[in-house]
């Protein structure tokens, strides 16, 4: 993939933003309100949604892989890499497909992404553990993803509206 300097810079800024959002998320522990393993807001998904629409699937994928790898490195936790990568790739794939379906707004795309992210993470847990026990939590996690997906969809919607008149969004 050939990137212009402007595209490369934007990818780097968005990667940094996604990392910062995943860090900030630790201070808003949704798991205290909803005591389920793996529950979180998924704020970094805002960046994936934005990159998908503004830059296309290729660059969104680059940002995702950079974010997951650096996030696991910074946290010093290689185990977490499998979880964030599988979750992130599932979310990305689902949103790339859903975003082609024009009657959907950013809300539908984002909810689909959040649900797919949970499926990916449970798959990672099943792989790590070697049995299907984590599947027990998936129905509950999917229910929670309706709310977290709508929340990140709302945030992404605000971002798109705020940037509507900038050169970023001009065709």
């Amino acid at each position, binding site marked *: 993939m050939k990137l212009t300097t402007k595209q490369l810079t934007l990818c780097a800024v968005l990667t940094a933003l996604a990392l910062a959002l995943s860090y900030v998320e630790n201070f808003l522990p949704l798991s205290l309100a909803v005591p389920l393993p793996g529950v979180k807001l998924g704020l970094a998904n805002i960046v994936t949604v934005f990159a998908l629409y503004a830059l296309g699937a290729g660059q969104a994928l680059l940002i995702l892989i950079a974010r997951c790898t650096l996030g696991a490195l910074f946290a010093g936790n290689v185990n977490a890499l499998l979880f964030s990568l599988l979750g992130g790739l599932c979310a990305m794939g689902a949103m790339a497909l859903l975003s082609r379906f024009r009657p*959907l*707004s950013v809300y*539908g795309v984002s909810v689909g992404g959040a649900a797919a992210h949970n499926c990916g993470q449970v798959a990672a847990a099943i792989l790590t553990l070697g049995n299907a026990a984590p*599947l027990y939590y998936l*129905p509950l996690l*999917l229910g929670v993803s309706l709310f977290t997906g709508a929340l990140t969809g709302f945030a992404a919607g605000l971002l798109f509206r705020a940037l509507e008149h900038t050169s970023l969004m001009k065709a």
Partner: protein
Amino acid sequence: MPMRQSPGTRPKPADALVALAVILLAAALALGVWGRGAGSGLSAVISVDGRVTETVNLSLLSGPEVRELTANGYTLRLRLSPDGVEVLEADCPNQVCVRTGAIHRAGQSVVCLPARISVMLAGTTDDGVDAVLG
């Protein structure tokens, strides 16, 4: 920098279809995963590294029993009782298994990923012999 397509930023009717699909998937999974294993009593299936190491028939316990389980450098203190299982204490970094709390129904499980230990509740059927004591 061309914007490939600008998305709708307010909810549209079609979004409800995605939500509905997620709800249906959750419901189907709930039926499949939670519906299994209704029996007269419970047993705890303990697995380490993906292999079942022990199956404890909880309905045979006369009272709560605490035991320690060590794997992959972490130790979990489990409380087994006739009506469920609980991780009392774990020295793992994330404490997810402790916060899961007590589990009571067949199909439920409590999992410690750092130690790669999982305890799943299964329903037991009374099929004659429950245990053979030597």
